[in-house]
């Protein structure tokens, strides 16, 4: 670490270098940004990561497939359920197991709930990044409602561990459908309030419009996925392109903008919350009957080969690349985590803007640090 700092100061001694992080209110975790400034203007941002590198990929090599679930939970803890789904789907695909419809529908509903709660937390912290502290509490207040649903069905609030290869850990709670419907009814009323508080606000417009523009070409070249990529016009919704679970049987639209600035990254996420509610409403009344899991062998061994599974988490495309040598432990697991890739564009889009914009841009990319470090 020492050496890295030294390099930068000797190369660019003329610049005013500040260290944002590892403990900084706007980096949402232990991300360290070495920012070179000229006055208030950002010249260069170098992310330094690895403060919570836990070696999840290495750990996966010594545990069995069902046990990987509890590690993927802890990568992107805000879309824990979707991460788990990726591993489960690839194991199921490798074993060519047919998953009951009930599981598919429940997984989809849970994924969309996860997406909504992730976007709520993002909205909360994005508002806080811009200085509107009240947003933080409104976002968390509404997120709590989803977390309660999770807690009732899965037993835990954030790190749900609800998926397992072959289906789900347990069936949904009898109250699940009613609670979800109540939440949708409540949140449809609350979401316009978010708009009144932040989206329509003239200060917010000034702060976000035209800030941190990311062109379509750069978005594809950098591989920026998720709402951040779609705000630039990169059609990258895995739910549309490679439908998994129950996404092939529902009608929803991919939110696409072409501007690619902070404001549209913001709007894309707000719109996605509406869209997620539509998806849930289509499914919540038609959960088919059936078993909630397929009986799997006690020790799951994947046939030799390579398996790649992509899912759409709340932040973008998560890829799980499993190389199996036929044992009960995977030979190599690679997680293509969306945040890791999204972080790489920060220098490109933030340089030239003011330091306050850097905070806004960082917030609009919606980075979750444990997913970057893994």
């Amino acid at each position, binding site marked *: 670490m020492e050496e890295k700092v030294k390099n930068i100061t000797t190369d660019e001694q003329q610049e005013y270098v500040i260290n944002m992080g590892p403990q900084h209110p706007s980096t949402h975790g232990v991300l360290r940004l070495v920012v070179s400034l000229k006055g208030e203007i950002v010249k260069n941002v170098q992310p330094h990561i690895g403060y919570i590198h836990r070696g999840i990929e290495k750990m996966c090599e010594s545990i069995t497939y069902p046990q990987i679930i509890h590690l993927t939970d802890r990568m992107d803890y805000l879309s824990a359920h979707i991460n788990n789904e990726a591993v489960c789907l690839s194991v199921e695909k490798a074993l060519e197991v047919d998953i009951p419809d009930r599981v598919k529908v429940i997984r989809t509903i849970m994924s969309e709930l996860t997406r909504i709660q992730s976007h709520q937390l993002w909205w909360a912290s994005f508002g806080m990044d811009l200085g509107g502290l009240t947003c933080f509490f409104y976002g968390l207040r509404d997120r709590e409602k989803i977390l309660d649903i999770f807690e009732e069905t899965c*037993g835990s609030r954030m*790190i749900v561990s609800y998926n397992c290869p072959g289906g789900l850990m347990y069936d949904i709670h009898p109250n699940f459908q009613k609670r979800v419907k109540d939440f949708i009814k409540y949140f449809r009323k609350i979401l316009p309030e978010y708009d009144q508080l932040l989206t329509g606000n003239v200060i917010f417009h000034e702060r976000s419009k035209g800030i941190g523009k990311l062109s379509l070409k750069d978005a594809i070249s950098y591989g920026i996925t998720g709402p951040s990529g779609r705000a630039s016009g990169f059609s990258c919704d895995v739910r549309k392109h490679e439908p998994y679970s129950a996404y092939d049987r529902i009608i929803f639209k991919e939110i696409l903008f072409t501007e690619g600035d902070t404001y549209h990254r913001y709007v894309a996420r707000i719109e996605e919350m509406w869209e997620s509610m539509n998806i849930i409403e289509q499914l919540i009344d038609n959960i088919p009957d059936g078993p909630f899991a397929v009986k799997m062998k006690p020790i799951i061994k994947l046939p030799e080969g390579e398996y790649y599974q992509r899912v759409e988490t709340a932040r973008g495309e998560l890829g799980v690349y499993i190389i199996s040598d036929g044992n009960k432990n995977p030979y190599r697991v690679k997680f293509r985590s969306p945040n890791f890739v999204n972080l790489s564009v920060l220098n490109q889009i933030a340089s030239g803007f003011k330091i306050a914009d850097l905070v806004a841009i960082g917030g609009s990319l919606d980075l979750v640090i444990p997913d970057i470090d893994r």
Partner: protein
Amino acid sequence: MRSIINYLKEIVFGVWSLMKGMKVTGSYFFRPGTIVTQKYPNNRKDLVMFDRFKGEVVMPHNEKNEHKCTGCGICEINCPNGSIEIISKSIVTEDGKKKRAIDKHIYRLGMCTFCALCVKTCPSNAIAFAQGFEHAVFNRALLIKTLNKPGSQLMKGVE
């Protein structure tokens, strides 16, 4: 002239958008009924966790101090981070056979990630999740628990 009108429009719309935001916060200010804060230590008595809540792993015992754990060790194998350790002993049953039985079911709460694999895979449903969540202790050693009570025995009929 047009630029002046635009200038004034900008001001009026700007102020209007700010007023809308103030309406939201102001309306909550005058509606204390919407407060969501839980007075946690005060509402401890009537705070009920959901029945599936994963607070800690316990081994339910019946009134005769019997449990269902056969000491097979499947939970130990399935635990991803080694928080369960089974110490077994061999006992002689009534009909004279030698049998493996549980001596100590050691559960390290501090290492547990609540993935529920042990509870799910247990063939005899011997362990379950309890709802307690107040686990803070001053000594780490207190987080290592022995789940089977002293002097407890295997329930009859459980293999």
